[in-house]
């Protein structure tokens, strides 16, 4: 599902423009992961041009090759070989053209920062080799790449290419798009999810200042007005009668691993421990609420959106407004980080309906309340785990039941459940007999993609439980883990994080350190968290150390930033966040009711060591940093005050109660 089998076409990947700049094309989307920068580095190296000349176009459906979507920290892993090969192929074509022009064999020519050179006096800028014929052709599978020593950008820390636009305010986020004649939209919300519209009285709204149109398509009702305030004020006066339809989620049982003899080994184990861990639903909670600009005309539509899957949006919008897909152009804009939430094209679909109805371009930006109330969220999870240890303190059997709901916009697709809702449910430790089962159970909450999907939940349970097993068998938590790690890269990140954090150091009273580690989509990550727990039960995260091995590293600074951000966000989930909902309706709809970490909660330091195995292919870093943090913090809380808290968030009450027991 992640890979396309179509041959790669050069003209869909790399374009040499007449002004001498290079356009690199990818269907991936940058939400702040730094993809634009990493891709520019790769192409600049392979094509041998200064990086300033490379423009990266992401997700424009009229230009880029089809892409399923930006998920699962796959982008760098997937696109690196493709962009490299395409750029190398482009460079070879330029050398061949220069060879014909200069009547010099190709092997006597070389390139030098945007020029073909013959070793003597002759230097031809790439652009002079265009001669009105664009570079094109099927990119060969096998192609010599630039030797490591000639790479000037990849592997070096680079500031992100859009940084200057961001700090000067010039960057155009979705809601910053301004089109001639553009109006503003507001949606009339039903009392509950999936409600059916029975009747509508918009007489008052039609007379409100600035109102241009009231639009209804199916169960979507909205107001289009000159100004945002006017659209919202008018939407509030629309009287709609709704029929509430109870929404039940799907259910399914998915065996993830079923080694024989688990029950017998558990029964025969010399030490047996069972625990359950609980995580609440949490909100993606982007700082910028969902937004889209739609310009739908009878003969075609242009959509300015934030999305993980531009081609998916194209298909949905085309169907909704009744246009053929090739008449819909989706132009992804810079967007507020949304960590998976934009896998659902909510605002885009609504804006398209409003634009079609009003016959004008429409900007729709959700309110903060709408963003909390109507966005999909990460579902709750209950993780039950039982393990048996032999007399020597080694795990011999492991039984794990994960109860949760679907974690992606793909819904109950049995082919993807184990990799999404079941992500990282199978422990990375060896060797023992394991039975791991995913139970998809109904919830009325609207659920969908959130950074690392269920991995953050499963690793919280697994890594908390590893500490509990170590304690129950009187073993040291780090040593206990190392006894069950054979993979050398995994072992190395765990040992290194212990080393660089000074694991085992004596700490002042009420302070403690916890360790946790995982392998997430072939990225190895280990963390140590240090906390202080006040007598009140208040947790303060003081320091975090993290060692990450993402294979070959394109932009070490970009990796550090992503991992730090993942840790900071995950610390916020762990200590502060719980999305409350009732009958499918979210009831925490503002930052006051759903606090996230602020500058005052940020730890004194998050030290990230990027120690990629240069011989391994590059892997993703957008999500893995967020995965082990919850357990590292919970384990640190236990070390600090003896409170083992198996339910997140780590509130003062829970910690006080756990301390007392």
């Amino acid at each position, binding site marked *: 599902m992640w890979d396309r089998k179509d041959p790669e076409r050069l003209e869909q990947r790399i374009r040499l423009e007449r002004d001498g700049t290079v356009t690199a094309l990818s269907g991936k989307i940058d*939400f*702040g*992961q*730094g993809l634009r920068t990493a891709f520019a580095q790769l192409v600049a190296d392979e094509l041998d041009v200064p990086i300033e000349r490379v423009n990266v176009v992401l997700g424009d459906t009229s230009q880029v090759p089809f892409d399923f979507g930006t998920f699962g920290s796959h982008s760098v892993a997937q696109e690196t070989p493709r962009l490299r090969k395409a750029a190398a192929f482009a460079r070879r074509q330029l050398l061949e053209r220069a060879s014909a022009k200069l009547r010099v064999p190709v092997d006597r020519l070389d390139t030098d920062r945007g020029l073909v050179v013959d070793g003597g006096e002759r230097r031809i800028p790439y652009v002079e080799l265009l001669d009105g014929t664009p570079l094109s052709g099927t990119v060969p599978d096998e192609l010599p790449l630039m030797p490591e020593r000639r790479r000037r950008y990849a592997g070096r820390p680079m*500031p*992100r290419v*859009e*940084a*200057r636009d*961001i*700090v*000067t*305010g*010039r*960057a*155009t*986020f979705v*809601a*910053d798009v*301004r089109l001639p004649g553009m109006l503003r939209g507001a949606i009339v919300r039903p009392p509950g999810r999936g409600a059916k519209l029975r009747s509508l009285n918009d007489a008052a709204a039609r007379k409100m*200042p*600035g109102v241009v149109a009231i639009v209804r398509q199916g169960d979507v009702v909205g107001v289009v007005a000159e*100004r*945002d*305030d*006017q659209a919202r004020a008018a939407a509030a006066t629309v009287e709609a009668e709704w029929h509430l339809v109870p929404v039940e989620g799907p259910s399914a049982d998915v065996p993830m691993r079923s080694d024989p003899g688990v029950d017998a080994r558990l029964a025969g184990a010399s030490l047996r421990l069972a625990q359950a861990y609980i995580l609440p639903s949490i909100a993606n909670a*982007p*700082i*910028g*609420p969902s937004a889209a600009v739609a310009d739908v005309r009878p003969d075609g539509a242009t959509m300015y959106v934030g999305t993980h899957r531009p081609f998916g949006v194209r298909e949905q919008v085309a169907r909704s407004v009744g246009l053929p897909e090739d008449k819909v152009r989706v132009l992804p804009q*810079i*967007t*507020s*980080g949304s960590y998976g939430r934009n896998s659902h094209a909510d605002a885009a679909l609504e804006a398209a309906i409003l634009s079609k109805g009003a016959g004008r371009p429409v900007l729709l*930006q959700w*309110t*903060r309340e709408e963003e909390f109330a109507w966005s999909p969220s990460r579902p709750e999870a209950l993780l039950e785990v039982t393990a048996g240890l032999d007399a020597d303190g080694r795990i011999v059997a492991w039984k794990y039941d994960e109860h949760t709901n679907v974690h992606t916009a793909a819904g109950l697709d049995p082919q993807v459940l184990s990799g999404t809702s079941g992500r990282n449910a199978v422990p990375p430790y060896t060797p023992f007999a394991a039975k791991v089962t995913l139970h998809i159970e109904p919830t009325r909450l609207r659920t969908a993609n959130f950074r690392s999907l269920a991995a953050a939940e499963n690793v919280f349970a697994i890594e908390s439980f590893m500490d509990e097993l170590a304690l129950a068998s009187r073993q040291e938590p780090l040593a206990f883990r190392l006894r069950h790690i054979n993979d050398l890269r995994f072992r190395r990140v765990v040992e290194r994080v212990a080393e660089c954090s000074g694991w085992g150091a004596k700490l002042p009273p009420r302070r403690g350190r916890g360790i946790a580690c995982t392998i997430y989509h072939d990225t190895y990550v280990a963390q140590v968290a240090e906390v202080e727990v006040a007598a009140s039960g208040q947790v303060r995260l003081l320091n975090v150390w993290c060692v990450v091995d993402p294979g070959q590293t394109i932009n070490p*600074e*970009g990796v550090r*930033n*992503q991992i*730090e*951000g*993942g*840790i*900071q*966000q995950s610390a*916020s989930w762990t200590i502060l966040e719980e999305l409350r909902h009732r009958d499918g309706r979210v009831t925490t709809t*503002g*930052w*006051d009711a759903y606090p*996230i*970490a*602020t*500058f*005052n909660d*940020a*730890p004194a*330091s*998050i030290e990230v060591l990027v120690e990629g195995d240069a011989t391994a292919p590059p892997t993703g870093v957008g999500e893995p940093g967020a995965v082990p943090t919850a357990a590292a913090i919970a384990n640190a809380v236990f070390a600090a005050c003896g409170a083992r808290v198996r339910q997140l968030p780590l509130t003062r009450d829970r910690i006080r109660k756990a301390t007392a027991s």
Partner: protein
Amino acid sequence: MKLALTVNGARHDVDVPPNTTLLSVLRDDLALTGTRFGCGRGQCGACYVIADGRAVASCLLTADQAARMEITTVEGLARGDQLHPVQRAFVEEDAMQCGYCTSGMLISAAALLARDPEPDETAIRDALAGNLCRCGVYGRAIRAVRTAAG
């Protein structure tokens, strides 16, 4: 209602409905979209501007109130091509990911440095405590403000 606003040192005449927020005027009438909408309740800092020297939420100010103030937005921090020290430091420290909250952070930081050129870490955290960042660049932003302070 007709109003004259002073934004980034220039006078702007606008005609907007009563109770229109400063944020809406900046974004919708003056095309200064670097100031961003986040919550409309003054709880996230994405829409901060400097009003008479203080960082304030432009979603809570009416345009009418703002007409009596000197307003600086993120677009007004640089002098031509010369970035403000906090802008330069945020680029150097890569103190951003998606960048949506960056304008507001820069405004808080610039207002802080104007009144306290050598803030310690606590002062920086306090000054930026109203700026929420979901990507989690707090540590880098603190470093950047320190760098900008020299």
